């Protein structure tokens, strides 16, 4: 019998620690497929961040540097400047990238570092137990916004894909989701595009992936998946915000 689907060679044959219904596994898979399709696995270095994404080295067949909380873009800058012929990407969550690491992401993007950033936005701090994130939606209840996020008190959620697209150093910025087959296919194409930019040495590429965190949202996997389409996409519209192919 002909095998039509299998594990991506860039992924290890192991079980992940991710909760049922978590979207990290899907995003990992799409990143792995991009590395496989460009044949760049052996020259790729990943930068893990702090949070549920920290175990990158346990799931990918690549060399990995673990970064302090929020600092992955600075670490990736160091790696890429030291080894410009390597493919370097960061994989960061929303607390990591858009709160404690806001300075590092903005400045590495502004320098046009030739790296790819995979930003997983699930509107909460997953690893620490569901606290309010910089992308938590207005009114969303979390363990540190028990009455719902109040934008008068906490500010409004950051729209990172749009924000970064305004910087001259950014070559590619897009927001994707993996909540249904159509969006997965689109996400795959755009993640591949982001890595293509780096393969071609064209500067900073950014992917924001909307993701479910059923455990910390207090939801079953299926309703959590539906929340992506019902609540997150209306606030965080999918699409390409910067594409220097078209400039």
């Amino acid at each position, binding site marked *: 019998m002909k095998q039509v689907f299998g594990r991506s060679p860039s992924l290890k044959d192991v079980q992940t620690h991710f909760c049922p219904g978590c979207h990290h596994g899907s995003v990992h898979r799409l990143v792995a497929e991009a590395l496989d399709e460009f044949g760049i696995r052996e020259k790729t270095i990943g930068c893990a961040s702090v949070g549920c994404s920290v175990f990158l080295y346990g799931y990918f067949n690549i060399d990995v540097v673990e970064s302090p909380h929020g600092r992955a873009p600075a*670490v990736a800058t*160091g790696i890429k400047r030291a*080894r410009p012929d390597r493919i370097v990407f960061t994989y960061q969550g929303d607390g990591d990238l858009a709160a404690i690491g806001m300075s*590092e992401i903005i400045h590495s993007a502004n*320098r046009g570092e030739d790296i790819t950033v995979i930003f997983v936005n699930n509107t909460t701090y997953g690893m620490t137990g569901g606290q309010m994130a910089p992308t938590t939606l207005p009114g969303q209840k979390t363990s540190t916004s028990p009455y719902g996020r109040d934008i008068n008190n906490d500010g409004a959620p950051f729209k990172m894909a749009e924000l970064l697209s305004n910087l001259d150093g950014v070559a590619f910025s897009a927001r994707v989701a993996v909540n249904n087959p159509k969006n997965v296919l689109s996400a795959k194409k755009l993640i591949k595009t982001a890595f293509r930019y780096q393969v071609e040495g064209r500067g900073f590429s950014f992917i924001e992936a909307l993701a479910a965190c059923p455990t910390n949202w207090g939801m079953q996997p299926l309703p959590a998946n539906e929340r992506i389409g019902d609540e997150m996409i209306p606030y965080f519209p999918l699409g390409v915000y910067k594409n220097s192919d078209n400039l």
Partner: protein
Amino acid sequence: MSDRQFVKGNEAVAMGAIMAGVRCYFGYPITPQSDIPEYLSRELPKTGGTFIQAESEIGAINMVLGASAAGVRAMTSSSGPGISLKQEGISYMAGSELPGVIVDIMRQGPGLGGIDASQADYFQATRGGGHGGYRIIVLAPGSVQEMYDLTMLAFDLSDLYRIPAMVLADSVLGQMKESITPNPRPQCELPSKEWAVRGWAEGTPQNVVKSLKLGDGEMEKFHWQMHARYQQVADKESRWEEYRTEDASLIVTAFGSTARISRTAVEMARDAGMKVGLLRPITLSPFPKKIYADLSSRCKLFLDIELSTGQMIDDVRLSVARDTEVAFYGRPPGAGSLPTPEEIFEQIKRYAG
């Protein structure tokens, strides 16, 4: 023809770094160390290296972490408040067994403090500085020549032991101009960086640079392993300078800029017929305990001089024989607090009695 050059201490650090083969420098402006990034922004790209003025001290040290993880020689430099910001990254580097050189041209504190010379960051430097329980290698130059030489040594020791290394000086040494010989890089057999991330090619092991250690007993084992390594560094790499200690009954001890002033005071005492010497630790971490123990069997008193209310004195007291007296004269940092040789000579006379 002499190849001696008349340069500032901070420039000597940058020259030493280039001679040591630094490939990446990441820094941020802060007085009194800004001559280092200024020099390297001009000269490092000429050698094919990378200079980035980072968005912050935090950004800079994490770029060092990344470049070092990729296997190249990388450094940063700063002063007081900036060094405080770098402690997060230094702790992660220590936990990840990454080499890297951090230059601290001390200024006053706490807080914004001021830009005059200080030695009040001795504790911060020699006790690791960040969270988690670790040591770094700390070298304390006493001249512009040593700013150059010890920067090269810092790279070698850091690579050899996979421990971050710091060059700890102050604004006197950083801003002062002296004539130096730009020595070639010392011969040092260094292990290859097989642990560095390069891309996981077929037939090679996966390289992961990380400080997260969750396995049963994994972290405990790491701490004991590093403890043994720090001990090995102490046994093999402790460095100091002795001046006229052979028959001294009173030994002045000081590091960096205060050691220079103290040396003049020791000369004044010798001219007056007093048996006084100087012991200057060059490695502050590891602290050269053995020479203090050895000399304390021969002398009556150590006189510790610092630009603080007393920090190194703890290490002096822990190192000397139990019955050896340790006296202290300190001028906490601040404009106008740098002691004169005469002032230290007065202290010598007081204790030499």
